[in-house]
């Protein structure tokens, strides 16, 4: 814990421990530059697929926001502002409404992430059984803090709230796979085994 009397440190530190982007922390969008590319993120093939499979499930277009964002993120790894704009048009809503929805959810990433997303569960059962050793291992081994990505873009470390696997605590999610009953030793082997 840094010196709590240092006003410059506390808010940052708090944000880092309490979560990466808390929903109510506003971002400096006035001076933000939005990168544009000619090729759309939500391309015709994806649009057609979504129109055929996802859109008929819901009585409004907006209701498909989460499935569409999941599909875009699955394809590109993260969600750019241009993608947000395209999804908003696709769903017939304002870009601001889309941004409002998308930024609320922890699993959507608005910055590039590593090839492997390591979510270490930090809720109570995992803390009781030693999740901090797992976090320290990643810190030491890969040199990243929660919320950061390694320079070679291979790993992103994130902290998760309860992954619903308290009986096999401590646990971590790496991309879509849950890893249970972790120890510092088997977690290190696991990270080593990722190419």
């Amino acid at each position, binding site marked *: *814990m840094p010196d*709590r009397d240092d006003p410059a440190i506390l808010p940052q530190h*708090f944000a880092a*421990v*309490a*979560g990466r982007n*808390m*929903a*109510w922390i506003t971002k400096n969008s006035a001076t933000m530059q939005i990168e544009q590319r000619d090729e759309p993120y939500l391309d015709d093939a994806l649009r057609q697929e979504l129109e055929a499979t996802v859109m008929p*499930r819901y*009585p*409004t277009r*907006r*209701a*498909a*926001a*989460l*499935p569409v*964002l*999941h599909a875009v993120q699955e394809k590109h790894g993260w969600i750019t502002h241009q993608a947000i704009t395209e999804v908003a048009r696709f*769903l017939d*809503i304002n870009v601001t*409404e889309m941004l*409002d*929805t998308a930024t*609320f*959810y*922890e*699993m*959507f990433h608005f910055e590039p992430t590593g090839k492997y997303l390591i*979510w270490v569960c*930090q*809720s*109570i*059962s995992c*803390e*009781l*059984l030693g999740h901090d050793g797992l976090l320290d291992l990643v810190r030491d081994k890969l040199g990243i803090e929660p919320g950061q990505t390694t320079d070679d873009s291979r790993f992103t470390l994130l902290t*998760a*709230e*309860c*992954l*619903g*696997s*308290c*009986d*096999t*605590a401590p646990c971590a*999610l790496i991309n*879509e*796979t*849950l890893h249970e009953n972790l120890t510092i030793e088997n977690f290190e082997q696991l990270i080593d085994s990722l190419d």
Partner: protein
Amino acid sequence: MALSEPVLLKRIPTPPWGEVNDRRLNHIDDYFDTGGYEGLKKALAMEPPRIIDIVKASELRGRGGAGFPAGMKWSFLPPQDGEPRYLAVNADESEPGTFKDRLLIDYDPHLLLEGIAICMYACQLDTAYIYIRGEYHQQAKTLQFAITEAYENKILGEGSMLGRINDRVPHCHLHRGAGAYICGEETGLLESLEGKRGWPRIKPPFPAVAGAFGRPTIINNVETLACIGPIVERGADWFKSMGVPRPDGAPPTAPASYGPKLFGISGHVNRPGVYEENLGVKLSDLIENYGGAMRGGKRFKAAVPGGISMGVLGPDQYDAQLDFDVGKKYACLGLGTAGVIVMDEDTDMVAVARNIARFFSHESCGQCTPCREGTGWIYKMLCRIEEGDGTTRDLDMLLELAGSMGAMPGTTICGLADGANWAIRTIVNKFWDEFEARVRKEPHVSLAVMQT
């Protein structure tokens, strides 16, 4: 008295009836072979209101945390008016300590789908959305596969045995969340389903009247719906032969705690896992007979009865009876999801409180000021106390702050802050000495400890 046969875990081998290593996914053929979808067939031979009567008579209470009687919830629906009506299945299991719905989805998804089909028919709901939390990647795949199987076997969809419901083809869709605890709150879930941020709504109107897309909607937890098939198949009296009746002298309108319940045990026990027992089982029984006793032979110190929102049971409450009245009897919020987290004598309760406070400050949706600010302040104060920089005044402020936020004190829209409120207050009050020993004394007498 122990449960005589597994009900919800009939197809999921679990001690004392089976071995965890024998577990495997039950496909629809396995489900049919073991008496599956019999409840649905029986239901379809009845008039829909009769099914609601059976569920009402069983006094099944919601297994998602609040314990609201499911049959009563169903009967709040207005008459059909020709427009769509929805079922929202709450599979957004995010309460720390809770992992029972994941087990049902992992190994016996058709038990859930049978409950969904019966509920759709009984309440005349044409479309069901299963809202599953985003972190459950594997479970979403399993469930999607099971839904496809159900469509192929004419359980759901065009030309299925449900026929037309509310004059529409009955459909069931999977909807994945994206990492937000608050979407497990019923109206937060509806907002999220509509493609918005998961901010809970002010009630009334209740979802049964105006829910998803402004239409009548029933929201039930996975485990609640999993109980429906067996209840319809075997009757309300059979269901009421399990669990505990209402206490003597209680009015007949007071809900009792009937039926079996999935208890998730985690923390400092030898054999953590999900076990099925009668409602009203003693905490000590769960720990010793199911959880394989305390890890390393340590002494019991505290346990969370059902997800961290419910607060804690202290060392003198080792024999607490876990039913829906647990809150009144043992000064905690309630049974919640029955995700029991056991802590041994070496546990630092200040660290536990800090962890729980962090969870709530992180998961607060930010809509109501007392919760958004209060949970953050509580977290910072507990960090300070843990560092050894707290004072007695901090403890008073902690209790005052916690006690002033939540839907029960009437300062927030939903119950998230009540969870933080009860968790923090019960820990601080039941382990006052531990907290007091960690703070710097001030010439200031604490009165807050008087109010539990």
